[in-house]
């Protein structure tokens, strides 16, 4: 009975203090609003920066994960080195890139290499029925989809038997299938490149990395990029030989590339980095110039995580500083308020207010100010990521704890920066305070 009375009493007291605080703040509407604005921006920046940072790193990580975190991707790159110009003139065929020898050595010497996916590509027009498109014939292996995390949409992938038999079968990417056979069921149809015909056995989803990159670029006008026809690597060799002819800017160019791309999958995730080092050694030994490129998604992922950490620290500091500035603004205004209301404090003390009553009154006022700023800030902070997503088409992720944390910090700042002005108010001599003009 008595304890409930006490509880009711303190609740009543709190309610009255809050009402009084709002009344006092309402006397100076503009000033209170401007003061709270400091906290609004602080809180909003904490929430939106976290959301944007989280979204950006999520997007980067997703893209890297698409590459496969256990994979090491090797690509042939045309050397930019001009010192070979003399040699080039002598032999008309430019020979560069990854070789079957590299692959054999990697498989033989690097421990834990589960599989390698060699692939070669030929760029030329692809014909399907009466439609044609600038595309790529990709010679590869049956386990390509598994390793590349690519889902089949329809039909099937080619089999090991078909690779062994050098069968003229192919699997089309979704966009290629749509280009060549927009109305017909593509499976069972044929696709032609140069003079060779291939029977379609399946449709596979587009390369997500290419698809994402394409969205960023202007248009899909000259995108042979996504237009891939996958055929057994053996079939490719049979039909198109080892040398590639290109007609470019008035002169023929002949290139010989054994393998355009090789993906190595390392069974033990912990062995990915050592394996990458070993592969690098082999390639350095076999190639006099750097005509290859090695991508380690796991390494990229780790770097992305490191970047995210740094990003978070930087954003966190910026947000903390803006909240600090907001807090100092509040303290400044509360000190001015205390001076301005010296007489009121004197009156209250004369009428029986204890020091702690005065402290409480001013502290409540500061907390109302920063709390209101915090609520507004949460609103703005939730709105900004939505706008960023809507207008800039960026992924933003608001973690549930971010608004809670930001609001909590704003109230804490109210208490911290309110304590000094409140105690200054309470410590005033009642007689002097009453005499204050």
């Amino acid at each position, binding site marked *: 009975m008595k304890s409930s009375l006490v509880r009711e009493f303190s609740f009543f*007291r709190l309610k009255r203090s809050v009402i009084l605080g709002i009344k006092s703040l309402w006397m100076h509407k503009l000033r209170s609003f401007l003061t709270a604005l400091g906290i609004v921006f602080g809180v909003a920046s904490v929430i939106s920066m976290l959301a944007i940072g989280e979204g950006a790193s999520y997007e980067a990580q997703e893209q890297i994960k698409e590459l496969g975190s256990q994979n090491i991707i090797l690509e042939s790159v045309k050397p930019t080195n001009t010192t070979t110009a003399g040699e080039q003139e002598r032999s008309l065929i430019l020979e560069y890139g990854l070789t079957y020898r590299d692959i054999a050595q990697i498989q033989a010497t690097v421990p834990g290499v589960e599989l390698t996916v060699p692939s070669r590509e030929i760029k030329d027009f692809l014909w399907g029925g009466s439609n044609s498109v600038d595309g790529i014939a990709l010679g590869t292996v049956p386990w390509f989809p598994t390793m590349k995390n690519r889902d089949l949409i329809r039909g099937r992938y080619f089999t090991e038997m078909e690779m062994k038999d050098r069968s003229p079968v192919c699997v089309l990417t979704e966009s290629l299938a749509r280009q060549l056979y927009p109305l017909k069921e593509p499976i069972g149809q044929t696709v032609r490149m140069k003079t060779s015909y291939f029977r379609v056995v399946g449709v596979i989803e587009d390369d997500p990395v290419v698809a994402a990159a394409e969205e960023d670029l202007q248009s899909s006008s000259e995108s042979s990029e996504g237009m891939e026809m996958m055929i057994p690597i053996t079939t490719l060799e049979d039909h198109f030989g080892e040398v590639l002819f290109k007609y470019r800017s008035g002169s023929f160019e002949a290139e010989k590339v054994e393998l355009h791309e090789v993906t190595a999958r390392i069974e033990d995730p912990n062995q990915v980095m050592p394996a990458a080092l070993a592969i690098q050694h082999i390639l350095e030994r076999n190639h006099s110039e750097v005509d290859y490129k090695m991508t380690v998604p796991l390494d990229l992922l780790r770097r992305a995580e490191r970047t995210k950490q740094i990003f978070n620290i930087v954003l966190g500091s910026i947000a903390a500083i803006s909240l600090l500035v907001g807090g100092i603004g509040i303290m400044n205004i509360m000190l001015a308020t205390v001076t301005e209301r010296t*007489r*009121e404090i*004197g009156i209250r003390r004369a*009428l029986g207010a*204890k020091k702690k009553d005065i402290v409480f009154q001013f502290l409540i006022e500061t907390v109302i100010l920063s709390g209101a700023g915090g609520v507004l800030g949460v609103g703005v902070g939730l709105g900004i990521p939505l706008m960023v997503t809507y207008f800039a088409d960026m992924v933003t992720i608001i973690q549930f704890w971010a608004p809670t944390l930001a609001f909590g910090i704003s109230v804490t700042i109210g208490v911290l920066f309110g304590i000094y002005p409140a105690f200054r108010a309470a410590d005033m001599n009642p007689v002097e305070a009453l005499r204050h003009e």
Partner: protein
Amino acid sequence: MPESEAKTASGVSGKSTDPVIELRGVEKHYQMGEFLVKALKGIDLKILPGDYISILGPSGCGKSTMLNILGCLDQPSVGNYFLDGLDVAQLTDDDLSGVRGKKLGFIFQSYNLIQQLSVVENIEVPLYYQGVHEDESREIAVELAKKVGLGKRLDHKPTELSGGQQQRVAIARALSNDPAVILADEATGNLDSKSGGDILGIFDDLNADGKTLIMITHDEGMAKRTPRVIRLKDGLIEFDTYTEITK
């Protein structure tokens, strides 16, 4: 030691009427740079319950200083102040706040109302600090506002009231906790003679109800209405009706 003194003091004189207020050799000093200003130079004073007192004296003689000490807003530099037999010097800051809130009521020359609060809310301030519940405190405040003739102005802000009306709010506020002693520092100083007279009428009624009333005034005519007059000069009591009679 002051405590035992207090007990003997009330023990000796405490047969029928113990003084509600007793000053013994009270001095108040202010350090002004190199100079020590003595605003009060040794005041001995006993005030009995139900006394109705005017304090007179030239400007700067220490009237307000003495009233602030009586009101527990200030402490004597030298000497002792006993309120209800209790040595005020022994009380903590919180105790003093409690004494001001429960036993004393203040009325100031400049009204000193809180600007952001309405008439009722101003009257409720002392009740709030005593933890009186909302409904009860509202009831008391409304009743007091009616008593001082402001029943129709309950929700007005101080700036919407005349000086006389504001002072009546201040009186109602001073009465809200039903204090034993009311202290008024030139309560009518800012008012014309008509409103001043109204205020004094209220004071007369309060004293008739048994309240101890101490008021500072510059007006000899008003001082004539009170049974007891104290004249201060240069920080000392020059004349006190009480001592004149007991002589």
